């Protein structure tokens, strides 16, 4: 367990120090949100209806952007191999990477979301449901994305292919997350969506470490 937190701390530290460009994804998140009012007009009633979906979509793209580099730099300079050789289980490394990714990517998105919801015109009384869905949803996005990210390391080229593989898998999270907000605004209550969304998290927590570490090993074969 001590090793686990050390690994997490190392990755977070690297991001804060600026050695990894994962922090740029947050900047992308801010920029992309601003694109919505600029591209679809500043009509307040229209913005209110699309706000939840817009924030969720940009959150998904922001994590997609940084997920491509989840394992890549460590995979390419060999530190991942050294970690495994030193006797730490691959699954634990995957989990630590995911947690570090969530702390540097998911958590800022969650924390920024109430402020951004004002900018984009979501009614302020709904900020809690936006925050709640993002809080449950972003870890699932990270965990779901770990396997395709590991696969892209094994392939050696990422980019478009990772997006192509990843987006269909992420869609359920996006649908449920933005659906909860829409349902809450329309007065139906978003709890059903939130229950389904929170079911995805433990399932992906269970499956993805194994599949991701299998994919990483594939790159070493």
């Amino acid at each position: 367990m001590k090793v686990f937190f050390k690994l997490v701390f190392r990755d977070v530290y690297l991001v804060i120090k600026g050695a990894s460009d994962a922090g740029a994804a947050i900047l992308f998140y801010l920029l992309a949100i601003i694109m919505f009012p600029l591209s679809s007009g500043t009509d307040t009633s229209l913005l209110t209806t699309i706000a939840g979906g817009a924030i969720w979509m940009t959150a998904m793209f922001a994590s997609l952007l940084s997920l491509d580099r989840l394992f890549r730099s460590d995979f390419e300079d060999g530190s991942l191999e050294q970690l495994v050789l030193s006797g730490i289980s691959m699954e634990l490394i995957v989990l630590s990477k995911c947690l570090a990714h969530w702390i540097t990517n998911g958590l800022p998105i969650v924390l920024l979301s109430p402020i951004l919801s004002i900018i984009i015109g979501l009614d302020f009384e709904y900020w809690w449901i936006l925050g709640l869905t993002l809080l449950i949803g972003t870890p699932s996005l990270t965990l779901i994305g770990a396997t395709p990210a590991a696969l892209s390391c094994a392939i050696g080229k990422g980019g478009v292919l990772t997006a192509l593989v990843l987006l269909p898998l992420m869609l359920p999270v996006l649908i449920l997350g933005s659906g909860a907000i829409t349902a809450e605004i329309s007065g139906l209550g978003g709890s059903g969506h939130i229950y389904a969304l929170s079911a995805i998290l433990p399932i992906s927590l269970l499956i993805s470490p194994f599949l991701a570490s299998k994919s990483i090993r594939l790159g070493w074969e």
Partner: protein
Amino acid sequence: MSNIFNFLANPSRFKIFAEKVNPFLLIIMFVFIAVGLWFGLFNSPPDYQQGETVRIMYVHVPAAWMALMVYLSMTIMSIFSLVWRHPLADILSKSSAPIGATFTLIALVTGSIWGKPTWGTWWVWDARLTSVFILFLIYMGHIAVVRAFEDEYKGARAAAILTLFGAFNLPIIKFSVDWWNTLHQPASVIKLDGPSIHIDMMTPLIIMAVGFLFFYLSFLLINVQTELNQRKLKKLFIKKLNLN
């Protein structure tokens, strides 16, 4: 039974087997689809509400079943390839994906054509339609990943991992009409308390479904033969290069 599997596990023996069996599969497929189409188009009653448009069902429903069936078989193949590292399972899974994607596309397109007169719209974003669309995207991702690797062995393993991951979508598709209120009608053939569809419509549907199943099997075998031939060609080419 396991002897048969062991016998067929050898790719070159499988190729000989495929060459012998495939003509029969093709004939069975043509007979079933021809009979099913005749039943479906001429010898079955029109629906009391939908009229003649119900005949789209005899293509739409079997195609949708096969879209799920093919993915299910790919999932089983992926487990085979990951656990026992079986080369034939890799090839079968790789050859299944384009067929499955085609079935999914057929189901989506015919469903859309059926939806226009009955629902009044080409497309709605309800749970069933969306989840089938996601299935199509997963198929396309699989096809892209298999071909992205230089080393076909690695590509197959990567695609197997991806297939297992995407299998979460199957139960969602199957039960989406029960879990959510959808415009798409709930299941009326495969359900616990027996089919609720009249026997006159059931007959052509089942015949078409069997025809589509044989379509899958025969085209799978053709794809596998092509794949095996391509690998053999590659080997011959390398051998020739080494000799020179």
